[in-house]
């Protein structure tokens, strides 16, 4: 393999092409720097591109993301590797980092694919569609989602039966199973870590019955049901296909909860739940939506007004954390909680429950840095060396952090943090160390 390693150099390496990484890359490129943007997923845009609408403006997430994404993908200063991983980053000296990047085979020649989807039609295999959060299936030959960028097919080699049907129908003959992983050795002047966050997995909270009770969903699953490219084309209970009319949001699922190891507030769940509640009131005019909360944290610009607006629309807000959920025979769910206002234990029946899952650190990022250690904070987010005056500095000089890799934040804050990281990266490059 050693002979096949390609070498190249850029001014900056940005790890993660979510909204923060994308913004940071654009800022750098717009100021004349060359950027390598590496994304482990098949499409850029991170979690945001999969959202329905965004608070508090209710802009459609895709409509904000796609112009950015297309600007990123067309920018002559930005090279994007999707389906790729940064294996190792070593700091050789100031303004001189060496990174090992592996591009996993997509088994489709990107330049030749016209996204005609004939391969997808032809493929006989159906597996869970991770981009629809497993609510429906997808083929083993597939385009990740309709607004994916690049909008190019890929083969899910784990599940492919290598029947060759896709190859037969492909008009441009762009499917190629002989592809091998490509390795790149890249030298860069600075690195921006924008590896984002993980969502809390509610399987770790068995008392909420997620996984066992099919009508208990995570907020991200609901987000997909509400998105323009939604899986059911309407909102249905995954348990039996019923249109729900009494929905509940369980806030602080996996946040502010020491028993699951996450004592901090995830900062976004209150607002995205309020947003989803508003969208649900629009999509299902007859439905009741109740939000069970400990404290509503609508702290940002326009957030409090957005919360008031939801109350005005008739969303119920009940102060009390849900203790446990049980399922009835008809698939409805009984939620047990203490209504703090009434100082009383209550049980409420809902036909669909959405767990507003919190933000957890993404542990992958730190381990790729060799030599100098990229320090994490005590919550396992990327540590900020000087959080007040230099919020994007990390323990390694010349490595900067953008977005939720350093802690929970909403989209505007992620974008500002990306601006901050790119700004510091630029002055680091100009200063020469």
């Amino acid at each position, binding site marked *: 393999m050693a002979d096949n390693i390609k070498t190249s150099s850029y001014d900056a390496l940005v790890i993660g092409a979510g909204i923060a990484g994308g913004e940071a890359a654009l800022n750098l490129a717009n100021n004349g720097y060359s950027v390598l943007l590496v994304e482990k997923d098949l499409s850029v845009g991170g979690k945001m591109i999969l959202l329905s609408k965004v608070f508090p403006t209710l802009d459609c997430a895709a409509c904000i993301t796609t112009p950015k994404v297309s600007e990123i993908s067309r920018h002559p200063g930005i090279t994007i590797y999707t389906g790729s991983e940064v294996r190792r980053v070593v700091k050789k000296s100031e303004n001189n980092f060496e990174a090992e990047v592996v591009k996993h085979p997509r088994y489709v020649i990107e330049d030749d694919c016209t996204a005609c989807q004939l391969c997808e039609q032809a493929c006989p295999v159906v597996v869970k569609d991770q981009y629809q959060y497993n609510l429906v299936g997808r083929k083993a030959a597939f385009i990740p989602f309709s607004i994916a960028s690049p909008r190019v097919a890929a083969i899910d080699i784990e599940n492919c039966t290598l029947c060759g049907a896709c190859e037969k129908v492909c008009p441009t003959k762009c499917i190629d199973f002989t592809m091998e992983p490509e390795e790149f050795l890249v030298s860069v002047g600075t690195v921006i870590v924008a590896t984002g966050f993980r969502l809390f997995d509610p399987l770790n909270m068995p008392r909420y019955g997620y996984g066992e009770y099919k009508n208990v969903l995570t907020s991200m699953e609901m987000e997909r049901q509400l998105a323009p490219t939604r899986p059911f084309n309407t909102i249905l209970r995954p348990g*039996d296909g019923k249109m729900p009319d009494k929905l509940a949001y369980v806030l602080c699922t996996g946040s502010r909860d020491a028993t699951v190891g996450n004592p901090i507030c995830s900062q976004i769940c209150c607002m995205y739940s309020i947003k989803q509640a508003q969208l649900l009131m629009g999509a299902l005019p007859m439905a009741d939506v109740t939000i069970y909360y400990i404290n509503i944290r609508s702290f940002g610009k326009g957030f409090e007004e957005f919360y008031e607006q939801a109350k005005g629309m008739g969303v119920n807000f009940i102060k009390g954390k849900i203790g446990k959920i049980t399922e009835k025979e008809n698939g409805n769910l009984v939620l047990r909680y203490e209504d703090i206002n009434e100082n009383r234990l209550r049980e409420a029946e809902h036909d669909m429950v959405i767990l507003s899952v919190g933000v957890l650190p993404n542990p992958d990022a730190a381990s790729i840095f060799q030599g100098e250690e990229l320090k994490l904070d005590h919550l396992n987010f990327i540590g900020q060396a000087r959080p007040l005056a230099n919020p994007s500095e990390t323990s390694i000089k010349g490595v900067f952090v953008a977005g939720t890799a350093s802690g929970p934040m909403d989209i505007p804050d992620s974008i500002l943090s990306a601006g901050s990281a790119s700004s510091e990266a630029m002055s680091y490059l100009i200063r020469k160390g």
Partner: protein
Amino acid sequence: MEEAEKGKTSRYLRDKKGVSEEARENLKKFTRIRKSILDALKEGEMTIAQLSQKLSMPGHEVVFYLMTLVKYGQVQTGEIDDMDEYYSYKLKK
């Protein structure tokens, strides 16, 4: 290794690494379920609850596979019932 012919490369990889049992099983399962759902719908429109009963398949599995068939254009959504609760589904002509 000889160069695989363009458009027939799947064979190359099949020879090289084979296909996992899991992937095969998964394909068989889907093919079987798809057939059973499509056969059931040949008899007429059905709701998910009805399909679930007829095929003795848990509701959530019916939702998953049926919606996948809707997504790939083999089944289409019909009318919603009077209670505005369940849609019925039919074969796409």
